[in-house]
């Protein structure tokens, strides 16, 4: 049996080889090392996952703990180097490796002409290493290593074209926004350490579950701190601002960050710490409200974006809002289910948009596309599959996960359900808007671009097809509850980590009729979104209806198009005052006071020296006279000093 630590180690080796030797040894070497290491990881991961999953479904899956040594030992606190395979980490491992691998393969085609090919793959491998460390760590500290690792890699990859000011700025923004979240996360970890004296998952969670009345008072603080970290990583209100700007990175990177790795880390942490969250109704309410608000807010912004990748970015924020909404009402399993299906279809959407951008020679504005269906058939059909999935059209993967979330939310709070319901309709609308603007109608770009249109190479279309199949059938592992508790493989798999009471029972309470009615309603709203997008953006009238809308409500449109001016708000409320404060510290405290003190010291010494200089006459008899006066003074002192 291969030890678990090999899984993150392989991409790390790939990172070292690509990074250190890649520039000299050329593209073939980089491709073999970069993609090969992730391929090997994927194969080895699945070799471990298949028997584990078989055991889990047979009903006797004890978490596998592998301890490699001690890391920190101080007083009664000890942290081990240890990895853990349980249903939750197994689930994350399965799609992080697989989707990550597909994105690597795709990148071979997409980045083919890039000068920084070796650098790109070394970063991408480091990203995989960090994410696998995060997922497999058996305690919060190892998790935090991976957590910071993905933060670093997102910075490196978003700012991949570091010579462009906008890319460098976007990378910095992602990094700083994540640090804000990490600050909360770290405080949460310190609180956990202070309360339990350990960060080991299988010590702290059972301890909290065993004595809820003892630990519950502190849990609101801990859960909220962890959630702040999750907000940063998973781009929730109010820390979401970095994600749309992250579009500055190469498109496969967007896919990796948005779908398989970084942004899912926040949901993973909340699901992992579900014991803590369930002890605090306040924290749960905060999670649900933030998630619901984010889902709606980002979906509204998504309807007015014209950059194809920006739409997808806001869509990611919105979908992550759904996941947190699910966690907030206690349906952690539904949240994780959506993480998985979202990984499939969002990776597919990003890679599909990458294929479009590739064909358009770098153009990302949908207003200059149109009619690409004929030139890019594979891209079109796979993109359509992902759109159907995210819109929640039945049998596609997103339908199952989204409706499970909405069902669970309805059981807890019809008001929040309404928010999610409206967001679902908007999701359907803005995604079909992308499809109609991009693939239907007539081409709106230049003749030269039209001539240049071509389908992408096989390394790019291959992953698209595989992800399209997963987006289509991936939802069947989590069939709706009214078909029976046994039908939902997903719940059965995750139940050892997330007790069923919080996971499946919510929807069970609703009863069969309500559940079917809810499903019908959300399918209906998805179809409405589709039809509206179709009437707005397809056929002869393409673009006229939205234009009339914009003319009718110019204010509303301007506010939405400018993303509710949140960036501007942050700039005014946080950035400017901080910069003014920093300037004050620089000019007044540092330059004036601190430098002033140091300079004053040297000035005094210099002054004393200047004064004493005049006594250095060089005249022997002056010196002798000084001696005499000194001796007289000394003798006088000795003579009169009190005995």
């Amino acid at each position, binding site marked *: 049996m291969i030890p678990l630590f090999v899984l993150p180690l392989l991409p790390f080796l790939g990172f070292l080889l690509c990074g250190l030797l890649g520039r000299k040894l050329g593209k073939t070497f980089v491709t073999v090392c970069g993609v090969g290491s992730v391929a090997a990881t994927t194969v080895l991961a699945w070799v471990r996952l298949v028997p584990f999953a078989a055991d889990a479904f047979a009903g006797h899956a004890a978490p596998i703990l592998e301890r490699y040594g001690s890391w920190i030992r101080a007083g009664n606190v000890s942290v081990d180097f240890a990895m853990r395979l349980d249903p939750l980490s197994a689930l994350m491992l399965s799609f992080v490796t697989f989707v990550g691998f597909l994105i690597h393969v795709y990148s071979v085609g997409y980045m083919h002409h890039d000068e920084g090919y070796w650098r790109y793959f070394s970063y991408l491998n480091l990203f995989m290493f960090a994410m696998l460390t995060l997922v497999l760590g058996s305690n919060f500290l190892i998790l935090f290593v991976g957590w910071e690792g993905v933060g670093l890699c997102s910075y490196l990859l978003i700012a991949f074209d570091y010579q462009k000011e906008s890319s460098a700025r976007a990378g910095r923004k992602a990094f700083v926004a994540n640090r804000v979240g990490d600050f909360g996360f770290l405080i949460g970890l310190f609180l956990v350490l202070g309360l339990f004296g350990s960060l080991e998952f299988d010590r702290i969670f059972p301890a909290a579950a065993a004595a809820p009345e003892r630990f519950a008072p502190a849990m609101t603080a801990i859960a909220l701190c962890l959630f702040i970290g999750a907000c940063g990583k998973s781009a929730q209100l109010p820390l979401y601002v970095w994600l749309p700007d992250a579009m500055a990175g190469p498109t496969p990177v967007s896919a990796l960050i948005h779908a398989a790795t970084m942004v899912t880390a926040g949901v993973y942490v909340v699901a992992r710490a579900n014991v803590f969250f369930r002890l605090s109704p306040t924290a749960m309410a905060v999670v649900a409200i933030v998630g619901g608000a984010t889902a709606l807010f980002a979906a509204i912004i998504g309807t007015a974006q014209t950059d194809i990748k920006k739409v997808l970015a806001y869509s990611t924020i919105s979908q992550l809002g759904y996941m947190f909404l699910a966690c907030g009402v206690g349906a952690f399993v539904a949240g994780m289910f959506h993480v998985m299906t979202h990984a499939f279809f969002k990776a597919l959407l990003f890679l599909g948009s990458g294929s479009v951008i590739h064909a358009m020679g770098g153009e990302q504005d949908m207003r200059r596309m149109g009619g690409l269906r004929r030139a890019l058939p594979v891209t079109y059909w796979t993109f359509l599959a992902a759109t159907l999935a995210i819109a929640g059209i039945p049998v596609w993967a997103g339908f199952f996960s989204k409706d499970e979330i909405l069902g669970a939310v309805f059981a807890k709070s019809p008001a929040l359900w309404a928010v999610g319901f409206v967001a679902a309709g908007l999701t359907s609308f803005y995604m079909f808007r992308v499809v109609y603007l991009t693939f239907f109608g007539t081409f709106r770009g230049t003749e030269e671009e039209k001539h240049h249109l071509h389908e992408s190479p096989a390394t790019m279309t291959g992953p698209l097809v595989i992800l399209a199949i997963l987006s289509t059938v991936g939802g069947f592992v989590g069939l709706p509850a009214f078909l029976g508790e046994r039908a939902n493989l997903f719940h059965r798999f995750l139940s050892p980590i997330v007790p069923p009471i919080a996971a499946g029972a919510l929807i069970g309470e609703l009863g069969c009729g309500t559940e079917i009615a809810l499903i019908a309603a959300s399918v209906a709203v998805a179809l409405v979104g589709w039809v509206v997008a179709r009437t707005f953006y397809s056929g002869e009238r393409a673009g006229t209806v939205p234009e009339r809308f914009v003319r009718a409500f110019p204010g509303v449109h301007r506010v939405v198009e400018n993303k509710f001016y949140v960036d501007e708000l942050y700039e005014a409320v946080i950035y400017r005052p901080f910069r003014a404060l920093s300037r004050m510290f620089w000019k007044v405290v540092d330059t004036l006071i601190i430098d002033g003190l140091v300079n004053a010291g040297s000035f005094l010494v210099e002054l004393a020296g200047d004064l004493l200089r005049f006594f*250095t*006459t*060089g*005249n*022997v*008899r002056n010196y*002798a*006279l000084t001696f*005499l006066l000194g001796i007289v003074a000394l003798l006088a002192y000795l003579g009169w000093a009190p005995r």
Partner: protein
Amino acid sequence: MSVPLLDVLVVSVALFSLGLCGALLRRNAITIFLSIELMLNAANLAIVGFGEKVGGYAGQTVVFFAIVVAAAEAAVGLAIFVAVFRHHETIDVNKTNLLKW
């Protein structure tokens, strides 16, 4: 017949003061040097006087050492004056103020 200690000390102080005045007021380095020898001898005289008072030969022995050291110093000092004279063609201490600021 022994000289009273007070007389010895009076002579010693007188000698020392003369030497001090010479050292401070004269310009010729050799004269200053001679004045310093005078102060040294005043000190020697005081030591002999005190030694006589205490009894034994310790005082006289110390004075012998002091005179030997002073003689060695005089040799070094004169060598320096010769070197200074070769350089400046004078041994007027007011004109050899190389250590001045």
